[in-house]
């Protein structure tokens, strides 16, 4: 058998006269391969450090010029070269918040349906369909949002929102102004559709990892399906589900193309969620190639650094929670 291994390694006996030489060669190959894989693993580390270092160097001029006021200023004026990140940060957080507000409950209910209610035959096809939704590139959501979804909202949904809530004192300010179609709400809704499959598929995975004994015991004492889900499955999988939310949130925060199409790219903070706004990623996508002057470019890179920092924290928490779950399970 070891002859076969040697032949496989293309080491012919004629080439190397002694057995020791062959073994030495194999050992060398072994070390080279080990070194290569290790080097590749380090490349992954180098990539992330490279991203961080490159962004910090690129952002340094802007952060040095504006200091802390970069985070608190709303002004974004390429002519006078005064830049502040508050409006994009606000837009990023608000659109992601709207997205999670919708995607979390809907995603949980879909996962509930898939693990507890769905007939076995349909389980796989529906699961695959939801995952396909996750695979559609974000630019497709963008073009669909711009040409189909935004006009629909403008014509039917937004006038309804304005009529219904517009006259209520505090709530009304959320729905002030004309129905543009594009704006913060539209971006949030599209993000919700994009995040939904992530929340669903991770929730489904953790739900189906619940030991059947627990569920059977609950059914045994007479619980209804909903009570089993609410009082047994959800508490048991809490950590994993929250990890899934964070993963979805990470995606919503960093999503670029879909948002860029429908947010309107206005560097201001409006109380109304019908008004156009901007997010960090949309600002970069819209303005980067047209940015003239080092300070303008640097400010956009600083925005990228902030975005990376926020998503890094969110994703790190998500991975930590999901890893804790795997260890426990």
């Amino acid at each position: 058998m070891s002859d076969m291994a040697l032949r496989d390694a293309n080491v012919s006996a004629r080439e190397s006269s002694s057995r020791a030489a062959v073994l030495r060669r194999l050992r060398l190959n072994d070390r080279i391969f080990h070194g290569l894989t290790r080097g590749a693993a380090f490349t992954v580390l180098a990539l992330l450090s490279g991203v961080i270092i490159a962004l910090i160097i690129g952002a340094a001029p802007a952060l040095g010029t504006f200091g802390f006021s970069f985070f608190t200023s709303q002004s974004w004026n390429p002519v006078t070269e005064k830049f502040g990140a508050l409006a994009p940060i606000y837009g990023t957080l608000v659109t992601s918040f709207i997205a999670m507000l919708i995607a979390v409950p809907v995603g949980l209910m879909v996962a509930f349906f898939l693990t507890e209610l769905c007939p076995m035959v349909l389980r796989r096809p529906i699961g695959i369909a939801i995952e396909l939704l996750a695979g559609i590139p974000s630019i497709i959501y963008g073009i669909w949002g711009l040409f189909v979804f935004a006009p629909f909202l403008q014509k039917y949904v937004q006038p309804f929102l304005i009529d219904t809530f517009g006259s209520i004192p505090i709530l009304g300010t959320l729905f002030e102004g004309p129905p543009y179609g594009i704006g913060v709400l539209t971006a949030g809704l599209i993000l919700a559709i994009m995040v939904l499959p992530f929340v669903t598929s991770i929730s489904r995975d953790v739900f189906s990892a619940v030991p059947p004994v627990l569920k059977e015991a609950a059914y045994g004492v007479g619980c209804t399906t909903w009570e089993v889900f609410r009082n047994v499955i959800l508490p048991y999988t809490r950590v994993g589900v929250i990890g899934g939310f964070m993963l979805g949130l990470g995606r919503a925060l960093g999503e670029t193309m879909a948002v860029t199409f429908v947010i309107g790219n206005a560097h201001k903070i409006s109380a109304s969620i019908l008004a156009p706004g901007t997010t960090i990623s949309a600002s970069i996508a819209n303005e980067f190639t047209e940015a003239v002057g080092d300070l303008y470019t640097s400010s956009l890179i600083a925005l990228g650094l902030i975005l990376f920092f926020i998503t890094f924290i969110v994703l790190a928490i998500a991975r930590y929670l999901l890893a804790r779950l795997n260890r426990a399970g």
Partner: protein
Amino acid sequence: MSATANSLYAGRRRRNAIAKGLAVAATIFGLGWLVLILGVLLFHGLSGLSLSVFTENTPPPGAAGGLANAIVGSVIMTVLAVIIGTPIGILAGTYLAEYGRHDKLSTVVRFINDILLSAPSIVIGLFIYEVMVAPMGHFSGYAGAVALAVIVIPVVVRTTEDMLSLVPDTLREAAASIGLPRSLMIMRIAYRAAQAGIVTGILLAIARISGETAPLLFTALNNQFWSMNMNAPMPSLPVVIFQFALSPYEEWQKLAWTGALLITVTVLALSIFARSLTSTRKQ
């Protein structure tokens, strides 16, 4: 007594029925978007689909044309990205699964890789702009391909590690017992056993990058003409869609829809094919 027990039971059953109804509604709601998006895409995209889409270059405003240069640009950059990213990804995944299953380096790399996997792709674009475009002084197809490669790597690392971990250790032990060196064991035994899974990972990575727009915007930029020069700005399907969809010209918007249909069909076909590769093996 029994009346309150009955009403209590009725209430629980009612709540159960409502929750079940909501779950079904949520599922229909979720799947509805898929149907809606695909439907609209087919409707708008098919009407503009013709042979000239594949044979003519992107037109100037107001004229008819095709997407040939964008399609070719996308294919070239995707292929180059896969050529750069796949070996690094497979080797790193091999380290995680074979050599350093439990060591500190692997724990860190695994964590970092997961972060990279879901990092905003626009940040990757900024990174490549800083390290390639700015020093070179101009946008280029190379920069676009490298940006895409950075997205390929974490996907391949992840699937390679997962698939190698599924290979039973008895196979490795059997290989070691006949005196096979470790590197040969990995290349001849482990890779072969995990083949389908690793290919799935590569296909999923291709699916992922073929729709990526953000990292190309300021690396490869765009180009209205037929260009095979990787050292110059290069057109790509997603960037052309972005530019054309936001334009006021009807012909451009029509081409954007057609391009969107092409990308979606490619991506969905790739991911369905990739899934079918592994699922037949699992069952």
